């Protein structure tokens, strides 16, 4: 496969929107229950008349997508593909609430229209008048992975094309409350940079919108970063099985027996889900540099896109930000990064990112 990342655009709880690389300053949030995005300057990307009905995630989505188009020097993509776990959950909650509270009468249609999961991919298409292939995947911790698979297939079918692929999710008070009751989040407010130090159950929720322009080739070899291989694992029966599958993934055809220089793992501060990352590091990659990222963006279904963006920046600029380093840090060239993330132990995702 080996697909080139030609550009990125990302809105996250960090100052990732403007800077070309990893931001100089890390945003620290103290005493928080969830991480929210730093919103981009909407007016620079969306005229107020067009944006009059758009919810926060739709606005953020359009900004990130347009930023990605700029970064990749592409005006019209040949496909727009998004992945989202919960979609436009804010408008979904708004409409559901009004259905119940108003007794099914006199309902404003806008939140219903914008509750559909394809709202953002189609709003991007509408904003740039793109009539090409357009799709949206909505499968929990595989939402982005499903979209990425589609993008990779599209590039095989249409080798000269540019494919805009993105992952997005938003946090709301209601979804935070409901998932807290399910035991997913920590009971007390936390400081994000100390996420791994608490030791109690639960993680901290976050959100983000990231877009990537994928192509088979790039005009700019210096900045070229490739997705060398990606795979998913659904409900693996044991840790041994995950380890075996990860070994097979790295030895496989696409990965070409590559040994990673950096591991970017989805540790989220919940011991129940973090043990697998430590075990795999110990068993397979004892001496390999280990980094993590969810203290910067929080946990959400498509958080792996933050890791993919981070990997792209590290490979492009050959700099590993101190704030993500966790274990065994050796200085040296970084040519290959392995991203491993799982959501609730059900949806496991591997990606191998390399320099061209």
């Amino acid at each position, binding site marked *: 496969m080996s697909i080139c990342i030609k550009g990125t655009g990302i809105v996250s709880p960090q100052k990732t929107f403007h800077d070309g690389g990893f931001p100089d300053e890390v945003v620290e949030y103290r005493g928080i229950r969830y991480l929210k995005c730093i919103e981009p300057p909407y007016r620079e990307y969306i005229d107020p008349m067009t944006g009059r009905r758009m919810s926060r995630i739709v606005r953020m989505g359009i900004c990130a997508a347009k930023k990605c188009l700029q970064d990749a020097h592409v005006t019209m993509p040949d496909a727009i593909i998004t992945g989202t776990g*919960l979609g436009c959950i804010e408008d979904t909650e708004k409409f559901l609430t009004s259905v119940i509270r108003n007794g099914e009468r006199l309902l404003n249609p806008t939140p*219903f*229209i914008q509750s*559909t999961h394809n*709202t953002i991919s189609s709003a991007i298409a509408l904003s740039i008048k793109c*009539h090409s*292939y357009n799709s949206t995947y909505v*499968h929990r911790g595989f*939402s982005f992975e499903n979209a990425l698979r589609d993008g990779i297939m599209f590039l095989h079918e249409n080798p000269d094309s540019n494919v805009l692929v993105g992952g997005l999710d938003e946090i709301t008070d209601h979804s935070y409350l409901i998932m807290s009751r399910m035991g997913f989040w920590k009971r007390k407010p936390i400081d994000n940079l100390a996420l791994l130090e608490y030791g109690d159950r639960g993680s901290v929720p976050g959100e983000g919108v990231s877009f990537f322009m994928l192509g088979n080739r790039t005009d700019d070899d210096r900045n070229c970063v490739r997705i060398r291989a990606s795979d998913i694992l659904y409900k693996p029966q044991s840790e041994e099985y995950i380890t075996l599958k990860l070994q097979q993934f790295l030895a496989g055809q696409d990965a070409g027996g590559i040994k990673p220089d950096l591991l970017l793992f989805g540790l989220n501060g919940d011991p129940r889900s973090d043990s697998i990352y430590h075990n795999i590091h110990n068993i397979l990659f004892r001496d390999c540099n280990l980094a993590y990222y969810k203290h910067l963006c929080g946990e959400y279904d498509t958080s792996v896109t933050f890791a993919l963006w981070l990997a792209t920046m590290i490979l492009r600029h050959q700099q590993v930000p101190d704030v993500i380093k966790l274990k065994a840090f050796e200085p040296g060239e970084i040519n290959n990064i392995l991203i491993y993330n799982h959501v609730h132990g059900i949806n496991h995702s591997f990606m191998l990112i390399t320099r061209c």
Partner: protein
Amino acid sequence: MISAVGNDADEVFQVLKTAKTGIGRISLLETVHTDELPAGEIKLSNGQLREMAEMPARYPCSRTGLLGLIAARQAVRQAKIRDMGEFRTGLVSGTTAGGMDRSEVFYRSFLDDAGKGRLRDVVTHDCGDSTESIADGLSVRDYVATISTACSSSANSILYGSRLLKSGMLDRVIVGGAEALTLFTLNGFNSLMILDRNICRPFDLNRNGLNLGEGAAFLVLESDRIAKQEPSRILCEVTGFGNACDAYHQTASSPDGHGAWLSMNKALMTARLHPGDIDYINAHGTGTQNNDLSEGLAIEKLFGAEIPLCSSTKSFTGHTLGAAGAIEAVICVLSLVNQVVFPNLNFNQRMNELHFSPVNTCRSDVHLRHVMSNSFGFGGNNTTIILSVYGHEHLH
């Protein structure tokens, strides 16, 4: 498949032949609109569906998940799959509202008190949940995906699954979609003022909106190599698919049907067929002013004076949103296998803007080789699928 016109494909086939609609008064969904808004409701309680789906009571499962599992089990049985681990097998499902039917129950309590509401009613909320319920019920492990592109969701499942096979990633893929009738979608479409208070009249001059429906349908797709090992199981072939974006308006279709034309044309190109090769179109045909005009003009633009037989079967099933593409694909399979075209009910008078009328009686005097199915969604997400009798190259 399961829908308002039958609980499996055989029943559906019998009902479609008799031209009897499944749309009627809503009796199971508790809504204030029960006397005003007819729908294609499946007259089975969640308990009854659980039994049919062989889903144990202890597992939380939405109505969407149950409908999906019932339909997917039927497809797997018909395809005579004995061992799911025999080949690299995936599941791709499309839905728009996912487990919203349970979330509505949860939310009534939750809105009064954030500590209230049973969590088992909300763990099934997201779209991926119904897919995982189906995958687990069938023991599918190698690949799972869920698509949500509004009313074209499950048409895109067929498209994505076909491409997963072509790319060599999978040998077999179960594709389709599921959608339960919910207060959310019923009130949503009502707030758009596009629900007909009578039974819908697709492509009719006096059409006045759509009726919602619920249901699920799945198809088992196999790579040529696997399918050929037991050719007697092959019902037909997915030969073409096209996906395009109308990019005209958030909800409305473009007046000239540009996106619809693009997706139909792309499907013809992937199938390497000419417009004249298409023998039947199962139209999206919702019955709204906007869709039928836009789709009708796109059909005229693509097919010129030689318009194939065409009908909208939403007049039987109601518009099943995320499941519609798969339900109509199964109806197309029934058409191909039985060489019959099902009618477009309630059609009386041709639209002023169009030069063709849909088929309004059941037609068995047909020779069907290639049939086309359209599914168009909000946001202009348009998808067209072409199904052909197996080995059609030899027929030319």
